[in-house]
């Protein structure tokens, strides 16, 4: 059971790439939220991995903060989606034309 840092970092790069792909391709607001979540998780993985290999509790602490803020972000994001859905009966961001605040 021995893993090296590079393995984790590679996984996190892959996740980051998938997230970027999702963000750039998908036009569905919820899918874009998925992509954002994947990117945040990739970052968290990196934080914890580096924290483990430079034995230090800071990595984990930062990961906790990051997860907590992700929760806040999802709450707000989904509320936005609900509002948009209620206004346009759609969740395709291409249709959110008149989001002028």
């Amino acid at each position, binding site marked *: *059971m*021995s*893993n*090296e840092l590079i393995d984790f970092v590679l996984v996190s790069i892959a996740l980051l790439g998938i997230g970027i792909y999702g963000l750039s391709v998908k036009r569905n607001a919820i899918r874009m939220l998925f992509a954002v979540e994947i990117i945040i998780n990739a970052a968290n993985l990196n934080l914890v991995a580096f924290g*483990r*290999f430079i034995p230090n509790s800071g990595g984990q602490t930062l990961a*906790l903060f990051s*997860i*907590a803020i992700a*929760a*806040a972000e*999802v*709450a707000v994001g*989904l*509320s936005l989606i609900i509002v948009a859905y209620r206004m346009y009966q759609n969740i395709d961001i291409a249709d959110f034309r008149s989001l002028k605040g």
Partner: protein
Amino acid sequence: MVGELAGNYSTVVLMFGFAVVAMAPALLISRMISPRKKSNPVKFLPMECGQVPSGEGRTHFMMQYYAYILMFVVFDVMAIFLYAWGSALLELPKSATLPIIGFLAIMFAAMAFALYQSGKRTIW
């Protein structure tokens, strides 16, 4: 060694897997030995109290209590954060309680507002 603690957790996953392995055959056996008749298509309609169902089964259905789920996402984080504090409390100096009290105070304010908002049923 990296990953030496993970072994403890494998048994939980094994237990999960065992239950799946043990229960899936129950369904399979049941499927094998139970009688099946596809004579009547009415049988597979959704059950609606002896009525032929009307409308969609899954609709855009919003309970007036959606706010509580939104609140749960945030306050769940708060509750688990308190565990990080609580488990380390015996090793901390007493002054370390002050930040958590500040944390709780802010969250209380937010919770009060949120509960006030979600208590107004008509706006949901």
